[in-house]
């Protein structure tokens, strides 16, 4: 198997995630796009781990999965707070800090 087939798949997933983060307005959908990007990174880590026959890449992927769980927990709490204060989950309504 080519190393690049995994890396390019991950690059495609990452760019789709970038598009989602930039183009989505609903906060939960932005969080989903962030998950796409984190998964792309994990594919890279596990692919390199398999290619150079070293387990540490898999351990890093597990750490990233843990961080993603923490990120979604805190992120959803923030989204709920935004919804409660703005009565809308749309991120372009959050412009209080704009001069």
């Amino acid at each position, binding site marked *: 198997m080519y190393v690049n087939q995994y890396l390019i798949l991950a690059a495609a997933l990452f760019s789709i995630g970038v598009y989602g983060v930039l183009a989505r307005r609903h906060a939960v959908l932005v969080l989903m796009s962030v998950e796409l990007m984190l998964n792309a990174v994990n594919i890279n880590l596990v692919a390199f781990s398999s290619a150079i026959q070293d387990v540490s890449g898999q351990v890093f992927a*597990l750490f990233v999965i843990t961080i993603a769980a923490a990120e979604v927990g805190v992120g959803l709490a923030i989204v709920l707070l935004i919804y409660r204060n703005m009565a809308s989950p749309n991120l372009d309504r959050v412009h209080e800090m704009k001069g």
Partner: protein
Amino acid sequence: MGPQNVAFGIIAAAMVLAALRVVTTRNVVHAALYLVVVLAGVAGIYVLLAAEFVAWAQVLVYIGAILVLLLFGIMLTRAPLRPSTELDNDQRWAAAVVALGVLGLFVGLLVDAFGDEQFEPETATSAGDVGEWIFSVFVIPFEVVSMLLLAALIGAVVIARRDD
């Protein structure tokens, strides 16, 4: 072309299509369900790479926990359950240009760096191997990550709590 490459092609095509639907669909709940396809595809990719334990962790943590959290988020923000045109902002074209630029940059760099380098996935790494690494070489990062998870848990409760 071996059976592994056929499996890779099918999984990769399904993942990319589902990921595109996640960022373009007009229905919030459908986006979450397409995300399940992507996450399951990632688990399949891990199996192809002989990373058995990471694949199980992916299924349990992502599909089992994170997705349920996201669905709770959809429910609690009273997202419209029917198709809505309000989900995207008006910079879709700029976002598409940026995303295509990122993709082009990555693919160019990767083709330049790895070309047609090949590898054969080793025999499956067992959960025991991964555990040995976590609890010997990576034991301090492991403890740090568990503290981080605890802090995130308490932080989420503090942020989302109603002060009355």
